[in-house]
């Protein structure tokens, strides 16, 4: 199969993730959409690595997984903290800072 198809799939997943971040209101769901975007990046890197006959893109995918895991640790801690304070993970409720 033409590896370009995987690039198109990656772009689709990335877009779904980006739209999800912009439209969803629950911090956890928003965060999951960001993870979807990062995984779309991984797919693109691996597919391009295949096209170029190069190992670099696959190595990058591993690095990105590690970074995404670190991000989960920090992100969930922050979301947990705000949930415990407000009893809600909705981003619409977090609206003290404005203007």
């Amino acid at each position, binding site marked *: 199969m033409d590896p370009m198809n995987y690039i198109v799939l990656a772009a689709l997943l*990335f877009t779904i993730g980006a739209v999800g971040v912009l439209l969803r209101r629950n911090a956890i769901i928003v965060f999951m959409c960001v993870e979807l975007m990062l995984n779309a990046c991984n797919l693109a890197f691996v597919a391009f690595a295949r*096209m170029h006959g190069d190992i670099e893109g696959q190595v990058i995918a591993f690095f990105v997984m590690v970074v995404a895991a670190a991000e989960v640790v920090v992100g969930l801690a922050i979301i947990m903290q705000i949930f415990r304070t407000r009893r809600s993970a909705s981003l619409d409720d977090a609206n003290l800072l404005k203007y």
Partner: protein
Amino acid sequence: MIPHMDLPVITETPPNIDWWLLAPLATVFAAGVLGVLFEAFVPKGRRRGIQIGLAVLALLAAFVLLVLQVGSLPADESGVTVAAGVLAVDRTVIFFQGTITVLALVSLLLISERRDGRDAFAAQAATVPGSEEERAHIMAGSQHTEVYPLVLFAVLGMLMFPASNDFLTMFIALEVMSLPLYLLCGLARRRRLFSQEAAVKYFLLGAFSSAFFLFGAAMVYGYAGSVNFGEIRLAVEAGGAEIFRGGDGEPLLLMGIGLVAIGLLFKVGAVPFHNWKPDVYQGAPTPITALMASCTLVAAFGALLRVFFVPFGGSAESWQPMLWVVAVLTMVVAAVIAVTQRDVKRLLAYSSVVHAGFVLTAVVAGSTDGLAGAMFYLAAYGFTTLGAFAVVTLVRTRDGGQELGDLDRWAGLGRRSPALAGALALFLLAFAGIPLTSGFIGKFAVFEAAVAAGATPLVVVGVLSSAVTAFFYVRIIVVMFFRDPEGEGPTVVRAGAATGGVIVIGVAATLLLGLYPGPVLDHLLPSSEAGSEPVAVMVDQASTETGAK
């Protein structure tokens, strides 16, 4: 036909890891790791002093190492790559790293400041604000000494960011810089709801933008067949990797440039990617805001300059129009919104956005003069903004109360505390770019480079925007000195040695760089008289050699 995968080859010569040139980064990293260990093994009462000492020592050592490194660089303006080509070291990078180290040291003074045994950070961040447990922890005098290792890790990311020589390293640096900052933002002692909200907003938007950066890097990798900056540059000149030689890879490159730019412009806070800045700057503990406003901005611009000058330097015509639009939007929109602000930290945040717009005009210029102008501007702005935030930490609602954000209630500060108000007035005049301050020299250097590169309309917008911003800076000065206070007026807490030191350093740097900018301009910054191409200052031949397959 799909070519075969190249199996990883064990080369005869091991990759060149130049530990001497890596030493500043290694020092800061080692100190961060040590700090984490100290958290686990040192008794509670002694942690704070040890952590502060460790952090200060590490940053001082890193700075000394950076200064010593200049001597071991090639005599011409070129640089070298280290650690198998993932990091570049040249004079420009060392200037950025040195600036970040010094600014981080000064912010560390602000971070370590304590008043009545309490610092700016929550006693125990895990407790719910207003709860019984929180009160118990405050009474027990608990404190988060983890702040110092977190700051060290953030500084490590900032030092790596402008030095990265490929997109993977740059992405890792971006995350190493950002993750500790997300946490630090949520640790304020007072107004914890604001602080937690700032952390969530910063985190989600930051992660969102770094995903854009990464997808852009993937597109560029697809186009060029490598993420190494030197190789991307060669690929851009050759029209893409081998599989794209027909010229049909161009959309990939354009998408890549656009998406990478979104990620980086978010970090510098340019309009339309600036929305996080006022919220985060207002909600975060003020010492952390100072760290972000100075060091993070310098690091992000270092990376931005590097990306646009080195890998994408060969296709300037494809990114310059985009940066034109962003620069104009940034200077106009942020200046107009800033006029309506009532909170001092939000106002300084919008001011930081406007300044990012001014520096962008130098990036658009794309010349060595532009690079030098941006470097001077960032260093000068860093010191001034640190001083301004140091003043903000001292003005309170009442003795022992929280910081006074509302600008209208700053009336009468000039009478109550003339020295403090005078220092803030100087910082604001420097922000406005009044002659005899560092802000004027910085603006002049930046605009001069932009005019020389033919971006005169941009400079006209910049000057008009400066005029608008001058209005609200002067308004603050008028409020402080010439308006009668309502009721009791603001309370000024006595500056401790650390905060006082930060303000003095800010005043000294603002005046020195304004009155005697010569030494910095002539000796520390790249100059076009050396005959070097604008990009040659930051690109290095070694990266294309070691990375070549």
